[in-house]
């Protein structure tokens, strides 16, 4: 029907037009109620939607068979009820029940608090991770103490202030700084040539670590070997021993690793260990020292050499460790511990300034 069609179009057009007009219309009484009714209608729609949603959900659950799954019998419900009493958690358990209890240790028969029981057992039975470490450390320190005492009586010169300042302080420091269980230790024990004999392993590390070295605690042989290979001066500030290798030729400040062999030969030819003790510092001292170096030294640059504490400071020559300035003579290897080889190679490269080791070797020479 044309009439309705035209109406239709009229309505359509006026609809949009109506909207624009609506915005201009002011608030009026009847509209308010209508509006309120509208609001309620919208609200009811929303609620109905929610209800319908729930119905669909439940219906699906029923048809799929999982609707009644969460039903439990009264008995189990009671069992797992939430507990709300003081001193007890929601499951009804007392949570600090074992706080004040004490247990008797099966080993030492002491009464230990429950929370400390496990660590105590570890120490007591000697089976934990830390207990072996602590035991070893204690063992080492005890031996060190006893050895240092005997040394002090023998070597009066060791008490000389030049060498021993800071030694007392170092003695304690040494203990704590040594890592008794480090893998290095076992390696050095393998390499050592045996002069240490049955001596305590920790001694091999006395001059591995630059800190904590005390000349008083080292034997004369060891000190000599140590000082003929390295500078050995203990810094006032850091209390560290200088580990620069004593070079035979003070002028030849060579950085290369090939310093090794040529120097060795030159040194060997020059030096004689049996010369008089009153040598001038620096070159001659160090060169003297290096004469006695055994040939067992192996030219090592960065590798570890076998420990031979017997040999007096290894051979002459740079020991393959780059230069440093002249300083002492002698070279690396041999005397010092093997593991310090790499240490020394690093440290000497760093330490440019010359540190003199005045007649160290001569002093200890005399002792023999």
């Amino acid at each position, binding site marked *: 029907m044309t009439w309705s069609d035209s109406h239709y179009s009229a309505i359509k057009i006026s*609809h949009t*037009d*109506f909207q624009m007009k*609506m915005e201009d219309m002011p608030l009026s009484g009847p509209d308010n109620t209508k509006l309120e009714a509208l*609001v309620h*209608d919208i609200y009811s*729609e929303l609620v109905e*939607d929610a209800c319908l949603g729930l119905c669909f959900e439940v219906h699906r659950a029923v048809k799929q068979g999982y609707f009644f799954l969460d039903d439990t019998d009264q008995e189990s419900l009671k069992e797992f009820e939430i507990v709300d009493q003081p001193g007890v958690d929601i499951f009804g358990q007392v949570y600090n029940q074992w706080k004040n209890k004490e247990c008797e240790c099966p080993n030492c028969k002491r009464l230990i608090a429950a929370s400390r029981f496990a660590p105590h057992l570890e120490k007591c039975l000697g089976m934990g991770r830390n207990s072996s470490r602590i035991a070893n450390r204690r063992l080492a320190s005890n031996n060190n103490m006893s050895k240092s005492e005997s040394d002090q009586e023998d070597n009066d010169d060791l008490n000389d202030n030049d060498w021993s300042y800071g030694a007392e302080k170092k003695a304690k420091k040494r203990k704590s700084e040594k890592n008794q269980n480090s893998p290095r230790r076992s390696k050095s024990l393998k390499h050592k040539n045996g002069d240490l004999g049955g001596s305590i392993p920790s001694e091999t590390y006395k001059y591995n670590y630059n800190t904590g070295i005390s000349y008083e605690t080292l034997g004369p042989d060891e000190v000599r070997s140590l000082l003929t290979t390295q500078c050995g001066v203990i810094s006032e500030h850091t209390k560290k021993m200088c580990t620069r290798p004593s070079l035979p030729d003070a002028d030849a400040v060579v950085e290369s690793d090939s310093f090794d062999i040529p120097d060795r030969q030159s040194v060997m030819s020059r030096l004689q260990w049996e010369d008089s003790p009153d040598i001038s510092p620096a070159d001659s001292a160090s060169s003297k020292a290096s004469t006695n170096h055994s040939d067992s030294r192996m030219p090592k640059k960065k590798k570890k050499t076998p420990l031979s504490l017997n040999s007096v400071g290894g051979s002459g020559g740079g020991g393959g460790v780059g230069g440093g300035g002249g300083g002492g003579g002698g070279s690396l290897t041999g005397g010092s511990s093997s593991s310090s080889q790499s240490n020394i190679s690093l440290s000497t490269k760093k330490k440019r300034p010359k540190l003199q080791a005045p007649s160290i070797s001569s002093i200890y020479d005399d002792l023999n």
Partner: protein
Amino acid sequence: MFYPVQYRGWTVCSPADPSRQKSRQIMSKDSQMRAAINQKLIEMGERERLKELLRAKLVECGWKDQLKAHCKDVIKEKGLEHVTVEDLVTEVTPKGRALVPDSVKKELLQRIRAFLAQHATL
């Protein structure tokens, strides 16, 4: 010139009724306004937001659990195998409407009014 649509309106069902044939019926200003507002509600996403808000509040206040328990009773009554959606709807909806707590109702009404005030000339 447009004719204002001020014909005596027919009684129309609620604006959301899908069976309403908007294009065929002559609607009252009232229903047109409703339609417009509803349209705006949907277009702006406000309806969805309101729906979610209502659902959340109903769950929070325990309305859903209450109604579910009622559903259980209906199902047990009708028999698990034979219950239909219509059964549930007819049983549950009136109760559901009644069980909505006042606070929730008030808040929702407030929001709807606010929306209308903002987006429709009243």
